[in-house]
């Protein structure tokens, strides 16, 4: 299937639910093409196979989601299987100050409220995967947190990609109201999903003085692909934090964008990718500082083994008006194998003259001296490596304030090194 229109044809029979979907279909059927490695921001990530494949569409029956839950996590779950809302598995209890709605089921005023925000923040005009998502998503989560509400437990959007050769366009729209505070987990899990493809878009708006944390956990399975876009829009005096944890996924590409449109904002982005086999994980981040007096912090860490490849491209744009910006960015990598590769490019573009910005990257191996030291105390090579890697990734995992979620993420590391010591 060498033709874009042939590829799109397999989705065209899906009903468009909202006007924005019709618009996006027009865009993607016409001038907008999928990126190739000739595009600078896709240089190291080849997606051709994803947009030339034939997919099937079905929603397998799942008996239980227990295996996909975060162990010990107290959260309100919103569950989707292959992009379709699962009422059976979702928690529907009402929490004061929060509304959690399936987009498809939104009606009346709620629907009007949603349409005010939907597709207003993400760029579906020039980004083909965003347009693909907007064109064909079947459902999605629409979450609003009212003004002055502070959520006592996180909302977990669990997306299960189940079955072979599925193409799922996952959509989330989250609005955190003025002075409200909330945590969200976007958890992606998989089940026998060889050859499947998840294309997810999250729009997160944080209104004046709000505070939002979003944890993206990518554990789709070793034989599936995931393209993810998160667009954060921040109003005056708001805070946001996005933590991206990538565990499984044959091909993973993350696009994380922050538009900082009001003064006094803080934007934090953290990430860890633990890669193995022939995995390819690409993190592209972009922070757009439009106004003065804002801070952004970025720290991404990679632990890469086997023949896996990684890409990090972080761009911080400080516009001429964005004086007094503090922007820090760092990407650090440990390669555990001689055949693992990382392409890393921290980028700063500054047009203001009174700012504090830094960026940097490191690529290294495990410290041999530290390894020997730990071994002379009786730790096997794998156990010693595990301790060192844990320490390395610790300043990112420490950003996960929820204990159950952090335990799960640290467990990913333990499992990576498990059974390697005799």
């Amino acid at each position, binding site marked *: 299937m060498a033709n874009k229109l042939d590829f799109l044809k397999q989705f065209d029979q899906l009903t468009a639910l909202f006007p924005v979907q019709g618009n996006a279909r027009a865009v993607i059927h016409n001038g907008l093409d999928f990126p190739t490695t000739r595009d600078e921001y896709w240089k190291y990530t080849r997606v051709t196979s994803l947009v030339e494949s034939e997919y099937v569409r079905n929603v397998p029956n799942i008996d239980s989601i227990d295996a996909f839950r975060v162990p010990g996590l107290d959260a309100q779950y919103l569950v989707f299987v292959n992009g379709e809302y699962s009422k059976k598995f979702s928690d529907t209890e009402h929490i004061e100050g929060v509304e959690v709605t399936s987009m498809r089921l939104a009606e009346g005023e709620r629907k009007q409220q949603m349409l005010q925000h939907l597709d207003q923040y993400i760029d579906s005009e020039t980004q083909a995967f965003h347009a693909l998502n907007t064109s064909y998503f079947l459902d999605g989560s629409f979450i609003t947190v009212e003004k002055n509400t502070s959520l006592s437990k996180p909302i977990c959007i669990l997306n299960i990609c189940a079955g072979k050769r599925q193409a799922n366009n996952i959509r989330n729209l989250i609005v955190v109201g003025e002075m409200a505070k909330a945590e969200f987990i976007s958890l992606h899990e998989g089940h026998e999903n060889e050859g499947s493809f998840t294309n997810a878009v999250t729009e997160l708006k944080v209104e004046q003085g709000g505070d939002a944390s979003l944890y993206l956990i990518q554990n789709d399975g070793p034989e599936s692909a995931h393209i993810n876009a998160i667009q954060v829009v921040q109003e005056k005096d708001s805070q946001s934090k996005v933590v991206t944890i990538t565990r499984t996924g044959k091909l993973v590409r993350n696009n994380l964008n922050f538009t900082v449109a009001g003064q006094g904002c803080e934007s934090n982005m953290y990430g860890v990718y633990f890669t193995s086999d022939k995995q390819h994980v690409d993190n592209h981040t972009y922070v757009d500082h439009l106004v003065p007096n804002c801070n952004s912090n970025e720290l991404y860490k990679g632990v890469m083994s086997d023949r896996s490849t990684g890409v990090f491209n972080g761009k911080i744009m400080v516009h001429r008006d964005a004086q007094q910006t503090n922007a820090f960015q760092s990407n650090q990598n440990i390669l555990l194998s001689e055949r693992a590769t990382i392409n890393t490019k921290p980028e700063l573009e500054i047009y203001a003259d009174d700012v504090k910005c830094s960026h940097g990257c490191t690529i290294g191996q495990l410290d041999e001296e530290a390894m020997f030291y730990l*071994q*002379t*105390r009786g730790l096997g090579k794998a156990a010693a490596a595990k*301790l*060192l890697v844990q320490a*390395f990734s610790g300043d990112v995992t420490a950003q996960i304030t929820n204990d159950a979620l952090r335990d799960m993420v640290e467990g990913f590391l333990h499992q990576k090194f498990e059974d390697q010591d005799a």
Partner: protein
Amino acid sequence: MSDFLRVKNLRASIEGNQILKGIDLEVNPGEVHAIMGPNGSGKSTLSSVLAGREDYEVEADEVTFLGKELLEMAPEERAREGLFLAFQYPVEIPGVSNINFLKAAINAKRHHQGLADITAKDFMVMVKEKQALVELKQSLANRSVNEGFSGGEKKRNEIFQMAMLEPRLGILDETDSGLDIDALKIVANGVNKLKSKDNSFILITHYQRLLNYIVPDFVHVLYNGKIVKSGDKSLALELEEKGYDWIINEVEAV
């Protein structure tokens, strides 16, 4: 003849340079051996080779520890069998907690001996007791391994780890270097308390001063990759008085 530690004709080279040129050494349970020598004589190489550092090409007629072929074991296996190296330059490992790492080390050894994990309670009791032994502040025990420790604190931490791991053979590689007299006394005192009829120590040192506090049963002089003279503690005093040149001249005259 005991089979505690037996080293015969141990040779080691790195990048084509032969550093150890045939070391013979026998250590029995309960003994303290001091290995002294001028800079560049091969002292640290000897401790590294015994502990299992991989950088060297090693050959020997025999190196056995408790009856087992030492050179065939990985560093962690040597440790689990009861060998401990106190580093001359202890490594700082940011982010790895001293306590967690020690617990993992103790459990690795216990598993090797067919024992279950140490209980949290037993472990904490042990930590308290051994900390007191080397007067290590509790705050240090809870910090990242050696991170931000002073030179003296690092050396005390080495002895603390040794006390926790209860080795049969402790090799102290220039543990006295960089220590002021108070720290030296604390470290020596710790070692003296750990001494028993079943375990032994090899003290590697440039100076005699440590031997004022830990009295050796045997003193060996290492020069140019070989042990050129052995004696009792009086040899150390003689060296202190006459300097290494005295032995070097004697050796080179032969």
